[in-house]
């Protein structure tokens, strides 16, 4: 399909002879069934960013399932993520560029199809998340715009006429579960029962000769099911066609990155290294920060460093880059590591370690500015061997060791009663969900509630994001507490 992107942009323009100007707009509706692939040119960058932004929303939907969020919470979280990464306004929105929003929505969806068509498991999860996103949007869609959207498609239902409705009035009303007040006004639609499996499973419709009589208010079931079925079928077709796409070698790494993002959290780069100001840190501060603000992986590395007064290469790299991005300057970093390796002579340190530290700051060798490792990288690459301490505790620790480590790392805020819930997600293979839950528990003193994640329901995808958010919360609380004391000073005057 992205071969088609080579075509000129004219291909989406209206055919001659079409009069209805409205339909010549490429995206007349906010909702989209994604029947047609995007036929416009895209840059590699657009290709990737549209997909990643959409993935952030879908990943949050996935963790909502894992966390058993009730529908209303899921909706709130999804809408919050959407506003941030994937805004999609109604036609009536005056100040939004709805065309370009919808174009991004369209493109992102199709890029992710390519990324997620590769295995049955990925397809299943993608379909579930996308159908949920569609439901969230459908629920919040403007009534008249929704009507227009529904009229624009053939859903292949038969409207039940008055005569038939009267014939089965008793059965229809019984299936409507006693909500009979509006029966005379209620519209019914006939579809093959296989198109509304959810209604069949709950016996919520009258069924005759294979036809389900769906009341108007359950009409959305038909639509969601249709969306799901279409997408499932389309993904299977894409999977078959995909080998041809491998010709374009620029896309393949992007696509595999994206699908992995779904498995272990969104790829995340944390470039928020503070240059100056109150978030800059010194070597002296690291002990306290580790205790208060670090995620378990960094807590662990810090603990090992203090205990052994040494840290193996992979651990140094994971921890050192994290500290750099946290705001530890090169001078402070050298001081920190020099002091930490207290068994080592100055000579050995200068010869073997100082260079590496400066290198990781981009001051030696090819002078690259190495970013800190994201959760995705920690989970997927450089897997720890038996004697290693780096990695993700929620993935790489034994269950017993993880529980002990958690209790000793957060003695004041986390209790044994919290463990079953955390371990449940660990065992189900969702380390980022476990980490997010630990964040919530250990930051409840700052008013963080279950389900809020690191803010707005977002999950942890980067250790630096965890630490930065933790420090923000701490600072906000300090300021709040400082407030009244100022006032009391004022009162004394």
């Amino acid at each position, binding site marked *: 399909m992205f071969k088609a992107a080579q075509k000129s942009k004219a291909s989406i323009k209206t055919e001659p002879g079409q009069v209805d100007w409205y339909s010549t707009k490429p995206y007349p509706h906010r909702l989209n069934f994604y029947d047609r692939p995007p036929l416009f040119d895209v840059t590699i960058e657009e290709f990737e960013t549209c997909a990643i932004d959409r993935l952030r929303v879908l990943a949050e939907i996935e963790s909502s399932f894992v966390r058993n969020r009730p529908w209303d919470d899921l909706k709130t979280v999804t809408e919050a993520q959407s506003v941030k990464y994937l805004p999609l306004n109604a036609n009536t929105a005056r100040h939004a560029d709805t065309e370009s929003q919808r174009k991004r929505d369209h493109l992102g969806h199709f890029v992710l199809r390519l990324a997620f068509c590769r*295995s*049955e498991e990925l397809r299943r999860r993608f379909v579930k998340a996308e159908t949920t996103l569609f439901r969230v949007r459908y629920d919040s869609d403007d009534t008249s715009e929704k009507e227009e959207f529904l009229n624009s498609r053939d859903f292949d239902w038969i409207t039940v006429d008055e005569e038939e409705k009267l014939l089965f009035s*008793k*059965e*229809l009303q*019984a*299936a409507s*579960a*006693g*909500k009979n007040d509006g029966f005379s006004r209620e519209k019914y639609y006939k579809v093959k*029962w*296989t198109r509304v*499996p*959810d209604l*069949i*499973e*709950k*016996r*919520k419709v*009258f*069924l*005759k*000769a*294979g*036809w389900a009589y769906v009341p108007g208010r359950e009409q959305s079931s038909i639509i969601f099911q249709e969306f799901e079925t279409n997408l499932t079928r389309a993904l299977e077709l894409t*999977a078959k066609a995909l080998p041809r796409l491998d010709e374009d070698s620029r896309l393949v790494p992007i696509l595999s990155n994206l699908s992995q993002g779904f498995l272990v959290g969104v790829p995340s780069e944390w470039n928020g290294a503070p240059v100056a100001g109150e978030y800059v840190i010194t070597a002296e501060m690291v002990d306290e920060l580790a205790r208060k603000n670090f995620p378990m992986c960094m807590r662990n590395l810090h603990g090992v460093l203090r205990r052994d007064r040494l840290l193996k290469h992979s651990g140094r790299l994971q921890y050192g880059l994290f500290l750099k991005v946290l705001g530890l300057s090169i001078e402070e970093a050298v001081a920190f590591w020099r002091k930490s390796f207290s068994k080592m002579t100055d000579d050995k340190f200068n010869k073997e370690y100082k260079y590496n530290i400066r290198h990781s700051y981009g001051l030696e060798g090819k002078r690259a500015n190495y970013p800190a490792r994201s959760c995705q990288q920690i989970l997927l690459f450089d897997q720890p061997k038996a004697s290693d301490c780096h990695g993700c505790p929620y993935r790489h620790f034994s269950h017993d060791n993880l529980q002990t480590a958690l209790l000793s790392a957060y003695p004041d805020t986390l209790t044994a009663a919290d463990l079953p819930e955390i371990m449940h997600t660990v065992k189900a293979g969702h380390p980022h969900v476990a980490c997010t839950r630990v964040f919530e528990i250990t930051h409840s003193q700052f008013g963080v509630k279950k389900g809020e994640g690191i803010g707005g329901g977002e999950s942890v995808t980067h250790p630096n994001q965890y630490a930065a958010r933790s420090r923000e919360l701490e600072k906000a609380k300090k300021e709040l507490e400082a407030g009244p004391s100022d006032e009391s000073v004022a009162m004394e005057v």
Partner: protein
Amino acid sequence: MDPSSPEVMLTFYRRLYPFKSIYNWLNHEHAPTKLFTHREFAFTLPGDVYLRYNSFNSAEELKKQVCTLNPTRFEIGPVYSARPKDKKTVRPSAFSPRLRELVFDIDLTDYDSVRTCCSSASICRLCWTFISAAVRVLHEALTEQFGFKHLLWVYSGRRGIHLWIGDKEAMELDDEGRKAIVGWFEVIKGGKEMGNKVHVRLSATKNNPGVLPPSLQTALEPLATLFSSLILTDQNCFASKDGYEALLQLLPEGNVIKNLRKKWEADPDRHSADKWGDLKSEVKRFDKGSSTRVTLTAALEDIILQYTYPRLDAEVSKRRNHLLKAPFCVHPKTGRVCVPVDPTRVDEFDPEAVPDVGRLLRELDEAEKMEVDGEGWDDHNDWERTSLKPYVDMLDRHAMGLMEEVRRSKIEKIDTTW
């Protein structure tokens, strides 16, 4: 004759098993299609050896393999996207279940809490009534409500019955569709420890029990009749203390329970039918239309459903890739052949009268003695000379229905292309 003896089984497969009929039934056409060639067969050999992912090009090939392996039984699975025997050589993504009859399994063991005549493996005419009631309810619903036409009911050889639905639409159902249909029929839910196993009412609130879905409302009337004859009379389910306590547990009204318990404790020999009468009089003491009366009436309906509605082994039906024993296999314990059952005459069906493999081989011997010129077995359908014949005929008629359907749809296709 010992049905588990390998010689007996081998003779049965070589001379009596209707491979051609089975082939026609699975294949829907005369020339081999993927419906047969991509179909999984699994064999159970003596000593619990289980061979999966076998597939065959023809009825003859299947017969040859069955006679070579001489399994105690074999099962039929789904039609896969590739030949099951090639499973190891194709990409895993290219091997997935595609088509499969919609199957149901009903077994009397699921009725142990409501039958008093027998327990576990044993079965008699009385408890077969549970099965025949289930067949009638399911058959009616699957044809009238779901619109299926090609239903093959098969005795499971001991204490249950299987159903194979071969309609195109049934074959094509994905797992979600199968799960939905199971949900439609799964009225009795919850294990031994659960008292009230029926929670089906729509729009129930704290003060209102809600209404039965139309499908169950339809089923209720015949089941109420059955309840009276089977549960109250034949099984006398509420005779024992355990029996009536189980009933009392299902009632939502404290005073009614107290009154009945007092009465029944004082009269230990009171018959179930009388006890049910007592319960109904208790209900009638509340004003018609009062909320207690409505709640109690709903509870009585739920009780009737709990004691008589079909109890499915839901897992069998939910997934395309579930295997189910092939019709005409021999049950290793009873020696009885898993024969098709006519749903319109299921009440008359007597599991004890089903031909067993020993009897069939004796019939065959006698038929041969009668014949002057012994013909070779391979140009002849030996089962025609035994009491297996009416059952094979039943399968053939069923297979013809399916083949007719395919033939007609092919003609339609030609018509539309013109």
